[in-house]
């Protein structure tokens, strides 16, 4: 515990304790109609009663994670403009999602679906396909949660907290402490805890991002100097690879055509975001269909901050002390924490660090809850205990949320961290394979269920192998999430889902010609556009299945 700044440390601890208190108190908050937490709708969907304001914070929490604060600036710091694909992604995600998400909300409300797999099961009458969707959701969330852990770890490292042991598990004791606290209040309060903490978290984040964006450039000779240094740095030729260090503006030159890479990463990530079970959970917790739509209009405002945060990567390049510190540590994830530590007085650094840590814990909680809902509803109840009481279901979800977090811990420790953004992109490769059955299924029943299953399997296998085989100078596997296809560098998730879709279409034609049974569809056409709350006599809360 050497080199710990007492002021920074104290502020982080105090804010963390406050947030924990709020987390436990959340169990009593916003519980309309005397619902009980021992019902999965209550624990896992906050009673489905969230309006525009809370939904905005909850969905914004899915965007504003360690991905934003640590992973994106780290990629910008290390590779330049390609990291800004995240900005493009967070812009185009909202128009894309506006196309299909209101339909999912409506049909889920009509049938009491809690998870994306519930919808798949109802739409295609196939338990196997629903199982595939559930397993994919759980597995894909683990690297994403792991990314949150890596983010917390980065902050703790720069704070100097942690023991000097070489054993990874011993070294990260503070990380485990933070995580256990998170796990316990998620267990107790369910979705209400992260929704309430999101207020505190976003206030802290807005505060330090806006201060940083206006203050740091004045210390570094203005924006023009920051961009000049970045341009010179990324255009310079690396002595080891004899190639430019990075890109300042994406190029269209055939060698390392970063424009194609940029666009495919942005598109793939944008389609993937609202296939993740936690993003769907946040959506289904909305009270009204119009709440969902309205949020797609307001949420791009969140992305403005994301763009500014990405620019922290360039600030870190332009600040010689920070750049030297990061280089010495050999970990690009430390770029933002080091930048703040060097630029701000220690008390403000404490606020910023607390913001980042809490900003990683909240989404991790939301993700763990979503994964737990998936397991309980679509694996446990479906295959093992169909007569499970609501109380048992909630208990099961609570325990699974703990298990999922420890699974994420394994990803965090085992996978290389050259760029932690790869953890999110890897999850994206897996979750994107649900696009044909989920997004496709919201618009058409033409796809055959077995074709969807085959396409899903092919996409998952291809994507996993391709991602495993990517290597670079320092790592032999899982080094990146882009691959060279037909001479272009392209996001593996996107190539895999194209392969997936081709197989689905071809097999559907064959299976339909062979008249293989389609399975029963329990949804009706008009249920995709309706808001049941507008009906004259709304049916009180009721869970299907």
């Amino acid at each position, binding site marked *: 515990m050497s080199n710990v700044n007492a002021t920074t440390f104290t502020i982080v601890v105090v804010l963390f304790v406050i947030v924990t208190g709020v987390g436990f108190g959340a169990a009593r908050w916003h519980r309309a109609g005397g619902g009980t937490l021992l019902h999965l709708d209550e624990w896992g969907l906050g009673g489905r009663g969230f*309006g*525009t*304001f809370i939904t905005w914070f909850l969905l914004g929490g899915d965007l504003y994670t360690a991905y934003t604060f640590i992973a994106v600036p780290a990629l910008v710091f290390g590779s330049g*403009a390609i990291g*800004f694909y995240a*900005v*493009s992604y967070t*812009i*185009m995600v*909202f*128009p*894309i999602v*506006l*196309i*299909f998400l*209101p*339909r999912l909300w409506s049909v889920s409300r009509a049938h009491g679906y809690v998870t994306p797999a519930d919808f798949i099961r109802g739409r295609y009458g196939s338990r196997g396909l629903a199982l595939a969707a559930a397993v994919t959701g759980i597995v894909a969330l683990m690297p994403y949660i792991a990314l949150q852990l890596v983010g917390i770890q980065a902050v703790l490292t720069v704070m100097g907290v942690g023991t000097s042991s070489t054993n990874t598990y011993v070294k990260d004791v503070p990380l485990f402490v933070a995580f256990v606290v998170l796990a316990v209040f998620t267990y107790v309060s369910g979705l209400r805890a992260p929704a309430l903490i999101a207020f505190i978290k976003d206030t802290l984040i807005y505060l330090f991002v806006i201060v940083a964006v206006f203050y740091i450039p004045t210390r570094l000779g*203005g*924006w*023009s100097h920051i*961009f000049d240094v970045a*341009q010179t740095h990324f255009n310079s030729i690396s002595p080891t690879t004899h190639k430019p260090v990075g890109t*300042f*503006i*994406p*190029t*269209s030159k055939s060698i390392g055509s970063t*424009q*194609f890479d*940029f*666009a495919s990463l*942005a*598109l793939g990530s944008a389609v993937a975001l609202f296939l993740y079970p936690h993003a769907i959970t946040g959506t289904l917790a909305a009270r*009204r*269909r*119009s*709440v969902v*739509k*309205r949020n*797609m*209009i*307001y949420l*791009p*405002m969140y*992305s*403005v901050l994301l*763009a*500014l945060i990405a*620019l922290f990567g360039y600030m870190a390049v332009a600040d010689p002390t920070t750049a030297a510190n990061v280089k010495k540590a050999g970990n690009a994830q430390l770029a933002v924490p080091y930048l703040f530590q060097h630029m701000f007085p220690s008390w403000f650094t404490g606020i910023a660090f607390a913001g980042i840590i809490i900003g990683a814990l909240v989404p991790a909680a939301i993700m763990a809850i979503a994964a737990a809902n998936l397991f309980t509803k679509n694996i446990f109840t479906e295959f093992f205990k169909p007569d499970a009481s609501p109380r048992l279901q909630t208990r099961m979800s609570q325990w699974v949320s703990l298990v999922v977090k420890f699974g994420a811990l394994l990803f965090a420790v085992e996978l290389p961290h050259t760029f932690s953004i790869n953890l999110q992109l890897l999850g994206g490769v897996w979750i994107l394979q649900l696009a044909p059955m989920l*997004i496709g299924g919201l*618009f058409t029943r033409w796809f055959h269920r077995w074709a969807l299953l085959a396409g899903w399997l092919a996409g998952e296998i291809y994507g996993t192998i391709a991602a495993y085989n990517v290597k670079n100078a320092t790592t032999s596997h899982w080094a990146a999430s882009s691959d060279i296809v037909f001479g272009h560098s392209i996001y593996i998730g996107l190539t895999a889902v194209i392969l997936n879709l081709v197989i689905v279409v071809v097999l559907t034609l064959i299976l339909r010609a062979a008249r293989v049974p389609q399975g029963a569809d329990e949804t009706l056409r*008009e249920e*995709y*556009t309706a*808001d049941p*709350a*507008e009906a004259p006599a709304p049916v009180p809360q009721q869970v299907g299945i």
Partner: protein
Amino acid sequence: MTQASARTRSAVAAHPITSAAIAILVAAAIVGTLWVPFYARITPKVGDFPFFYFYLLIFMPVTSLLLFLATQLQKRLNGKPLDTPGGER
């Protein structure tokens, strides 16, 4: 897979121009940053910001505006308000 296809056929058939306008607005919001060659340039600089970075920043409020217009048109398409007053928050 446009916004228009999300509506019932009769609504789309009854208001082809409105439907097309919605589709164009949503498509513009997507293609605006997807088509990288359109803005992958250093000049013209806006303030101290190279064009590439300025464009990404400015396109966010633009997206909000495009989607706002699209949902407003959709309300007209449905012939009824999206939500009842006071049903919010």
